């Protein structure tokens, strides 16, 4: 059991480190540490307008999101690995060759994810804050406590997505019923005038420590984990799925797009892999609903309309990650026997990405309507979509067809954060001043176009046999 766990940790490390060098990947936690350490010195300045308690809400929300993302990727891991490395397979999918049950392997997999990503993301961040705490007059005990609550936040995301995805795979009607009940529960809490995010156990614990709250958090996590494990039912090996030809009609419908065969293939991949619905729920709607609850707590610190625009910008950044939805099943390999250049593939992936942008556009419009800011619907949608296209162009330039892999490259992440960070800060501020200034975000089409052109030239010049 322990050997499997350590092998899985080694495997995860090697998957990441072989992609862009051990040193570059090993520096990743140091980058997180550096950001936390230096960022901590800004807390006294930010605290003048935004209380420390609200900053902790943002940090906890981020780690909840991180848990959701790690869990979501874990559920798709084998498919991704097989597309990227040909015949490679993860230990998590080796029940056929090892005398271990699928459940046993799955339990090890979840524990491995917890430990691995704790040391990759959670510990470096908390450690940076802990080291900075004496300089910013934060009690050491309080800084150490953050390590516990951030870990819990991360675990809630991780176990939450495992739970939701196993329920989804087990029974779709029960999954939708569960979401409905969850929605009714949230609605009920909101009807009392309370924000459901305030009931998030790690936040409750962070605001006021009590053994009861800690125990409650652990019980909820254990329940999510145990139920996931009980419901986990891997697809039977050797099953043959047959489908009628969907490619031909789709090709005709998408004929206006550049490289329509490639776009049609991407759409079929997304639909048949279950990613279209799964990713939309777990990587888009769930994180954004969570963010909405957390952001709405900050409402009194911003101008009335600002929350909508802050949310539109956030939605734009998250929507840009839809590029990973269409690139994660492919490397260049399957196209190597066809007359297709890497730049052509990037163009086609961006065309499919463009189709998917209907989802964030509708989402922002619905949020604008529900939040009583329908008057600002158009500028909010324009801002969100413009940010999404700008961020995806940076992603394509920095990562080509491997954004989900290269995001762990320190240099890539740093440049991405700087380039996207500056733009979202400027356009958030501009839209706070006047909502209609957000329409100016259309100008982002210019740098987006330039970055896409640079991406094509850059990745055509790189040996496509990589990865």
């Amino acid at each position, binding site marked *: 059991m322990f050997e499997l766990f350590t092998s899985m940790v080694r495997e995860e490390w090697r998957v990441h480190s072989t992609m862009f060098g051990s040193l570059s990947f090993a520096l990743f936690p140091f980058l997180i540490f550096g950001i936390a350490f230096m960022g901590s010195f800004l807390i006294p300045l930010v605290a003048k307008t935004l209380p420390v308690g609200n900053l902790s809400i943002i940090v906890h929300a981020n780690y909840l999101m991180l848990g959701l993302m790690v869990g979501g990727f874990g559920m798709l891991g084998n*498919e991704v690995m*097989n*597309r990227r490395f*040909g*015949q490679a397979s993860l230990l998590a999918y080796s029940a056929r060759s090892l005398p271990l049950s699928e459940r046993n392997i799955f339990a090890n997999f979840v524990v491995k994810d917890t430990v691995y990503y704790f040391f990759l993301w959670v510990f470096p961040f908390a450690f940076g804050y802990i080291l900075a705490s004496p300089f910013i007059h934060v009690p050491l005990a309080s800084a150490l406590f953050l390590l516990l609550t951030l870990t819990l936040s991360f675990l809630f995301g991780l176990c939450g997505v495992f739970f939701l995805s196993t329920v989804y795979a087990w029974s779709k009607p029960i999954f939708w019923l569960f979401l409905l009940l969850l929605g009714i529960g949230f609605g009920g809490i909101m009807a009392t005038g309370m924000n459901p995010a305030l009931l998030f156990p790690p936040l409750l614990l962070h605001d006021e420590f009590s053994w009861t709250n800690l125990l409650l958090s652990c019980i909820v996590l254990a329940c999510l984990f145990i139920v996931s494990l009980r419901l986990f039912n891997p697809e039977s090996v050797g*099953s*043959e*799925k*047959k*489908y*009628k*030809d*969907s*490619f*031909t009609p789709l*090709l005709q419908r998408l004929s206006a797009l550049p490289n*329509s*065969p*490639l776009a*049609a*293939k991407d759409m*079929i*991949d997304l639909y*048949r*892999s279950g990613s279209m619905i799964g990713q939309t729920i777990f990587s888009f709607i769930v994180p954004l609903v969570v963010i909405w609850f957390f952001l709405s707590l900050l409402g009194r610190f911003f101008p009335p309309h600002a929350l909508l625009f802050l949310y539109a910008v956030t939605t734009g950044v998250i929507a840009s990650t839809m590029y990973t939805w269409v690139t994660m*099943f*492919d490397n*260049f*390999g*399957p196209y*190597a*026997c*066809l*007359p*297709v*250049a890497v730049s*052509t593939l990037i163009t086609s992936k961006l065309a499919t990405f463009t189709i998917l942008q209907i989802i964030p556009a509708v989402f922002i419009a619905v949020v604008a309507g529900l939040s009583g800011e329908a008057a600002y619907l158009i500028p909010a949608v324009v801002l969100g979509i413009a940010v999404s296209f700008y961020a995806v162009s940076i992603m394509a330039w920095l990562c080509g067809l491997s954004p989900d892999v290269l995001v762990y490259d320190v240099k890539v992440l740093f440049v991405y954060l700087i380039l996207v960070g500056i733009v979202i800060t400027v356009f958030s501020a501009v839209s706070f001043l006047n909502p209609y200034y957000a329409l100016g975000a259309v100008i982002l089409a210019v740098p987006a176009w330039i970055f896409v052109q640079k991406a094509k030239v850059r990745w055509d010049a790189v*040996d*496509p*046999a990589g990865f």
Partner: protein
Amino acid sequence: MTRVIEACDLSKAYGDVQAVDHVTLAVKEGALFGLLGPNGSGKTTMIRMLTGQTRPTGGEASVLGIDVVKDPVGVRKRVGIIPEQETPPSFLTAIEYLKFVAAVRKIPDIGKKADWWFDFLDFADKKDVLCKDLSRGTRQKLMFTQAFIHEPALALIDEPLINFDPIMQDLVKDYLADYVKKGRTIFISTHILEVAEEICSEFAILHKGKLLHAGPIAELKERGEHLPAFFLSLVRKDHHV
């Protein structure tokens, strides 16, 4: 006779590893050319360079008169390729994959051609099955079909018979022999020497990235030598050097 492949001083290094080391090679039109070598000798890298899948770190090469570095897509447009390990996209069915290939290659009316291949390679019952659910042998049939469906002037195949059962191997060997009789060219890489001796007209031996020998099979036969023995003596000699 026209040379369909010309490589001059072609090299490829992956960091400190010299996968292909200054190889000069020519393949004539109408040949069934076998690139032979032990595992790790550079055969796959050679095919990848010739089809523009990977860039040489030295030398130059042209395929059907097209420079593989300057116009790799142009090369892939004209040739058929079966890579050693790549599998067709997971979530398309077999027939959808062939239609996808036809759309990318701009081949009209694929239907009858596809049906012929499904019958010929005996996998018509799998045409609506997702590629990810196909057995390795059936995937190889599908990859074989996609490489030949546009009847290219040159096909480059990495280990053509791998994953095929003996009956299918026999069928494919006959197909390849007939294909070159029509004036087209086939370039295969393999380490199954008996197959190479049986079907190839010319061969080259690669070891540790270096070209040890190139010439027609007929020369060997004239000398009363067999390819496996000749190969082993050359490679063993080189190994001791």
